[in-house]
């Protein structure tokens, strides 16, 4: 780890000022990802601006939605009563991530900005386009069990590791950011990027911008929603494939469907075409199977992750079937 300077901001204007825009400084949330990467010398900021004493509120909006401060801790969000009731998928997704200790430290902003767990990205001795643009990608012909099957490019096949973000993608959330030039709001599904030929550019956030909050709009159907995560051990492992799903059925017909996948792409993967296919279809196995096929259309895997395609299809179909059951039980 490189030696670094540390400052604690007391409001967002100060935070933005302290950060500057040279790229040499970084915001510090819980540090559960950033400090790890600094220890590995993958990130080498000259200074850190700690934002954990601001932006911690979780607020219910008049329309029935919620706005979550960027520095709210993951565990606080997961435990929040309104979120548990109205958006159980979000609460569940968070609780499927990391460990109790990690969630107690991790913030919402940090979770959005956490970087891939690709082993070659983490290893300075390996070639990685994300770390060093143009260097090459050692994962494509290396270990790629954890890697993407959708939306990847020949330059990078990494996945975004977050669970929480998969739920936020399904819930049509938006990300509020603030910079020297003012505030703006970004649709959650457009916040993270596909790798293309610039895998080092991971989000729509501009240099110097601070994430201030995430807003989830009202969605009544989300009261019946669920997050399912499949991984290599029972807990404390990143997703091989995960599914965030919302399903509202009326008279045996799908009225509302939201579907997003984790562990399959460089960003939380909202399965729009599958949702469209479900809309108005009978809520039965055949429709769910078709939706699963639609969601995975065009998926292509590598030496160690081909299985994710079949796994994702099965997981989607069984998750929807569970939600469709009257009691919504798993």
């Amino acid at each position, binding site marked *: *780890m*490189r*030696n670094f300077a540390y400052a604690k901001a007391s409001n967002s204007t100060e935070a933005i000022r302290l950060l500057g825009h040279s790229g040499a400084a970084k915001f510090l949330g819980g540090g559960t990802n950033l400090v790890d990467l600094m*220890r590995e*010398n993958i990130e080498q900021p000259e200074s850190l601006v700690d934002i954990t004493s601001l932006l911690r509120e979780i607020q219910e909006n008049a329309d029935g939605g919620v706005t979550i401060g960027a520095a709210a801790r993951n565990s606080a969000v997961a435990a929040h009563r309104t979120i548990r009731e109205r958006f159980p998928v979000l609460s569940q997704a968070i609780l499927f991530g990391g460990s109790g200790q990690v969630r107690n430290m991790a913030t919402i902003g940090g979770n959005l900005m956490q970087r891939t*767990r690709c*082993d*070659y990205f983490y*290893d300075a*001795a*390996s070639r990685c386009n994300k770390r060093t643009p143009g260097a090459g990608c*050692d994962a494509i*012909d*290396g*270990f790629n069990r954890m890697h993407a099957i959708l939306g990847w490019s020949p330059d990078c096949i990494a996945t975004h590791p977050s669970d929480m973000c998969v739920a936020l993608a399904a819930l049509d959330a938006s990300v509020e950011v603030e910079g020297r030039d003012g505030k703006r709001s970004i649709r959650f599904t457009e916040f993270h990027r596909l790798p293309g030929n610039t895998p080092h550019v991971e989000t729509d956030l501009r240099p110097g911008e601070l994430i201030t909050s995430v807003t989830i709009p009202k969605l009544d159907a989300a009261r019946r929603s669920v997050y399912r995560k*499949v991984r*290599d*051990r*029972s*807990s*404390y*492992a990143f997703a*091989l494939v995960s599914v965030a799903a919302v399903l509202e059925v009326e008279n045996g017909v799908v009225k509302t469907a939201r579907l997003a996948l984790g562990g399959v792409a460089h960003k939380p993967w909202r399965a729009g075409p599958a949702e469209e296919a479900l809309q108005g279809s009978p809520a039965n196995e055949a429709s769910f199977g078709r939706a699963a096929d639609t969601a995975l259309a065009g998926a292509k895997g590598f030496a160690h992750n081909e*299985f994710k395609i*079949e*796994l994702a299809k*099965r*997981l989607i179909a*069984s998750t929807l079937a569970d939600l469709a059951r009257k009691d919504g039980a798993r």
Partner: protein
Amino acid sequence: MSIMQTLVQTAARFKPDADPDPLIASKKYVGRALDRVDGRLKVTGGARFTAEYAPDDMVYAAPVFSTIAKGKVRRLDTAAAESSPGVIAVITPKNMPRLVTPSLTDFAKLDKIAASNLPVLQDDSVHWNGQVIAVVIAETHEQAQEAAARVRADYDADEGMVSFERNKDKAIMPKDVLGEPPEIKIGDAEKNLKSAPVQVDATYRSPYYNHSAIEPHATIAYWEGDDRLYVFDSTQWVEGYRNSLAHVFALNRENIRVMAPFVGGGFGGKAGFWWNTILCAAAAKMVGRPVKLALSREGVFRIVGGRTVAEQRVALGATREGKLTALIHTGLTVTPDHARYAEQCTFPTRHLYATEALHVAQYVVNLDMVANTWMRAPGESIGTFAVESALDELAVELRMDPIELRRKVEPARDPTKDTEFSSRNLIEAYERGAAEFNWSSRNLQPRSRRDGAWLVGHGVATAYYPALRFPGGARVRLEADGTAIVQAAANEMGMGVATGQLQHAADRLGLPLHCVEFDYGDSHLPTSPMAGGSCQTLSILAATRATVEKLHRELLKLEQKDSASPLKGAKYEDLVARDNGLFLASEPSRGVSYVEILRKAGKPYLEVEGVSSAPMEMMKYSMASYGAQFCEVRVNETTGEVRVARWLGSFDCGTVLNPKTAMSQLRGGIVMGIGMALTEEMLVDGRSGRIMNRSLAGYHVPVNLDVPRIDVLFNDIPDPQTALGAHGIGEIGITGVAAAIANAVYNATGKRVRDLPITLDKLL
């Protein structure tokens, strides 16, 4: 085998048995589930581990690891590191003290214990990806780390051989496997196999594994003058480290002291005299101050080897009644040329089952890798995965209950050693386990039980580990107040060594527990073997027994100077130790207390040192522990996820010293076996030889949720050939576990997975 060895073995076979240890019948503390004596210290943070010592003026070392597997460091740019804040020195082959090259493990010579025989940072050659090529010393840990990242290396890289898959054809047969022949043939197994009415012939694969002990390797070293060296080290063999340091630094053994009061797990990974210890001592010598070298988790993965990848063939030929006519077990493992350790995967097969014809053979392929080493039940853990899976496959072919098959193949004598068993009650362990587990309710038909999305299955497999003993010493000091201290170099890695030894010493001396102390973890104390091979407990028991006998004989001599002594005319053989003194066995009221003996003799204390005999019993008998592992697994039909729902281990491992610490050991082994079966795998990139998942975020040991309730049963039948009738139990717990799980997965799903770990993609 040399003529000498043959002679010794022949002599051992005719040596009459000693009587079973009389303490087996009169034990008082032994066998009780006492709390571990260091438990409170450990849970309150009071137990100090190596990296927690802080001698005055201490500085910190950070190693720099190579990023190629084979070749030379062409240029090492240390300028930026040297000018980095707080840096005292950068050690490279140019300024590294000249050292004697460590020697590979040779059990006959206790200064030869290294896992690798490469010179340590003496030249610019690179032999594995991750080898240390420089060490930075700085005032703080952080400064050392920062500077280490500033060292730049340019390499002349050679091709190197790192891929197991691509180099299997270069396999050779090693000269020996831990001193045993690499190949044994009895009859013509291949011929019998071909003509057998029922046949199984399959290949079983297991990946590289890492010990992942909770405490990463750490050393603190300092010198007094040029020739006195003090070392705190997280070693599981203080004495071996002391002797090896003497060898490498050309010092007298007496001038070196290695201390390891507490060690946070080793599992074999802290016995091989690895580079971190040597580098730390060399660094301390160079800078003339105490140096701490605490490896990061990555550091452990880079420079301490783990368990080799393995590919094993097991072929069984059997009659319809389940008698084996052919048993073939061949294994291919990896070992670099600088380690030459062929992991003994065929060893269980050499001793487990009756067969008409047998063929075992081992091969190795030499790769440019970090030295492979012992990891909990080396050989037996992966070996039992292969042979116990195959036996289950045979049971399926025969449509026979797998326990019934074990009965059919139970041998009367050791099949390859051709000796009697000192104590073998495997079938009893199976029967007790089966009753407790309710095995009879299991479905013989696979895929016939489900619970919602989960398929449920049951599996069983044999556990096996040899009962080893090494000669060793002990010192017993009896104080005038009637208390005693027992001392042995011994290593406590969390197994409960001190607790078990105290229970034994108290019984052996006839003292209440609170009157006895056990002192360990220091190379200045009488010699002990490594805490490995599950040999330590048994070895120290034997040494203490011999030493207490010596003490009692001396006490008797002192006592008999008193002509009015109640023990007048008594011989040692007539005595029993109890109630704080020595008494006549035949006349319980006649005796004298230790306090009285010493008082009359005018001695403030009596101290004796003793050694145990050579382990001749191991030549005369086949000596091992056995067990039956039972489990229930659930496999999700949609996702392929495997969950272990229930576990029962039923063990035949001699007298149990302390059921509480023993159960912890066995449960720990079973947990590690669950990891081996389901979650653990070290990912070695076949292009670079680099370990890619070198942290515990990527190397998945089981989490609590992966581990069900584990029940443990003991036969508790003493082995007449050992002190107290006991066996070591550190390793047997992991054996058979992976096979039991694979067998249960088959029972649940009808799919046979022969390739560890059993990840969900293999069951989709």
